[in-house]
């Protein structure tokens, strides 16, 4: 136990936890959206994320930058980030749509039992990660040094880097945008209607297949944004990058209350904090033990997660 160090480091641990948690939260949205609509765990969502992380690296490479390049001037960096965010979000969104079309839709049309979906989900996940693994010879891909982490602001003696501020802010903006879309737009109403009552939704003229595609697309777009943040934080990506992080993101979704959008945000941030506090008290190697112990404890007392409820029933 390192309590005195923990108290010294608590500011830094909090900031690191929140920025890590933002990535979990954005990633978790894809699990929670699909689950809220279809009661399906889309295991291939981890690969949706991984594809986004490669798409960002590919974009930078195509624009002539690799891990040995110099950091360009700020306006160029911003353009490069926007370009990578767009390409990664679209690549992840397209991958999610493809997974739905190939792995789930044919089963749905045949009224397959839930276990069949589980198997095709795992199958799609393995196929995608192996495919990228073979293409890249299982070598990690380096990210150009676009954002040199340096302190941007200091709050109560804790320095917060530009990357951390950017990650947290972008995650909040993306989640706010998604929340408004789901709760205010006509399309969002369509999504909520299908998740609350698919039969009545059809009687209102809602095309269920279209709504399902839309939900996979939205989850993919969010995962793509998370993937760019991950690239910048880690400095690289690998064909199996989605797996370990996917387990965490899925955990965050369950922790917050799977099917609940705001639950994904809360679950992601709590998980990020728990991991980092755990690492601070017990040492870095206890990081995951603490995170999952927290999950078990929360689920014992609140089996439906912190916020409970699902996409449809959430919020009056």
């Amino acid at each position, binding site marked *: 136990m390192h309590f005195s160090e923990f108290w010294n480091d608590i500011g830094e641990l909090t900031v690191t936890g929140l920025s890590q948690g933002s990535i979990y939260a954005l990633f978790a949205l894809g699990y929670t959206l699909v689950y809220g609509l279809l009661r399906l765990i889309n295991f291939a969502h981890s690969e949706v994320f991984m594809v986004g992380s490669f798409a960002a690296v590919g974009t930078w490479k195509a624009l002539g930058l690799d891990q040995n390049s110099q950091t360009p001037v700020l306006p160029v960096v911003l353009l490069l980030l926007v370009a990578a965010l767009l390409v990664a979000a679209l690549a992840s969104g397209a991958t999610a749509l493809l997974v739905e079309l190939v792995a789930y839709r044919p089963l749905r049309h045949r009224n397959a039992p839930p276990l069949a979906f589980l198997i095709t989900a795992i199958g799609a996940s393995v196929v995608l990660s192996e495919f990228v693994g073979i293409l890249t010879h299982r070598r990690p891909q380096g990210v150009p040094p676009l954002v040199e982490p340096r302190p941007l602001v200091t709050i109560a003696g804790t320095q917060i880097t530009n990357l951390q501020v950017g990650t947290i802010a972008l995650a909040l903006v993306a989640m706010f945008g998604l929340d408004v879309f789901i709760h205010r737009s006509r399309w969002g*109403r369509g999504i909520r*209607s299908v998740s*609350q009552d698919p*039969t*009545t939704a*059809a*009687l*209102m003229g*809602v095309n269920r297949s279209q709504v399902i595609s839309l939900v996979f697309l939205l989850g993919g777009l969010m995962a793509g944004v998370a993937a760019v943040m991950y690239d910048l934080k880690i400095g690289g990506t690998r064909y199996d990058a989605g797996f370990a992080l996917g387990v965490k993101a899925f955990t965050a979704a369950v922790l917050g209350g799977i099917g609940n959008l705001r639950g994904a945000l809360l679950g992601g941030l709590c998980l990020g904090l728990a991991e980092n506090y755990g690492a601070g008290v017990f040492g870095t190697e206890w990081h995951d033990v603490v995170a999952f112990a927290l999950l078990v404890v929360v689920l014992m007392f609140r089996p439906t997660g912190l916020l409970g409820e699902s996409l449809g029933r959430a919020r009056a």
Partner: protein
Amino acid sequence: MLLELRDVSARYGRIQALHGVDLHVDEGEVVALIGANGAGKTTIMRAVSGLLPVSTGSVIFEGQDITRLRADRRVARGISLSPEGRGIFPGMSVKENLDMGAYTRRDRAGIAADLERMLTLFPRLRERLGQPGGTLSGGEQQMLAVARSLMSRPKVLLLDEPSMGLAPKLIAQIFDIVVEIRRQGTTILLVEQNAHQALWVADRGYVLETGSVVRTGSGEDLLDDSSVKAAYLGVA
């Protein structure tokens, strides 16, 4: 003829629910389907709205065969079902439920005008506009279900058991509204256990027994028919 069922059969798994049903609804009419539980009334509504695929026969709407058309596409064509059990979205406000009724429409001004028309027709809904649908009373939910169906501006409104589970005073109110909706020009196909009141407001009726039409005629004739009286109107 606005809507026509030609020799329609339908089944739930191995149980045949409809045996070659023929019926039609003309523009501007109110047509009632009456019969005991399990006679096939709701099954006909499901077949017309597209929720249940028919096994044989065809459904014709405005002269076009829509037998294979998906339920959500039939709404845009002008068929709207207010389902048995009401199907209110519990987590959406009354306003959002009404907006769902207009999901297939894009004419903002028309939607706003129709919303106002519904709130005039159902003043209770105006008081409850921001409240979640799940918190309404049974009668209010029924009004919401009918208003929501009308929000799609249907050419034919299908009402499945609108009086179910309501107090007598509310039942009378619902039937008044049926008459008013018809006066405003909407064609109605009505399913009711409450045969007496249904035949009273209907131009024509069909009596169903175990999935077949056994009698048809004007509302008045069926009200006077001795076998209908004995079986459905509780008069010996």
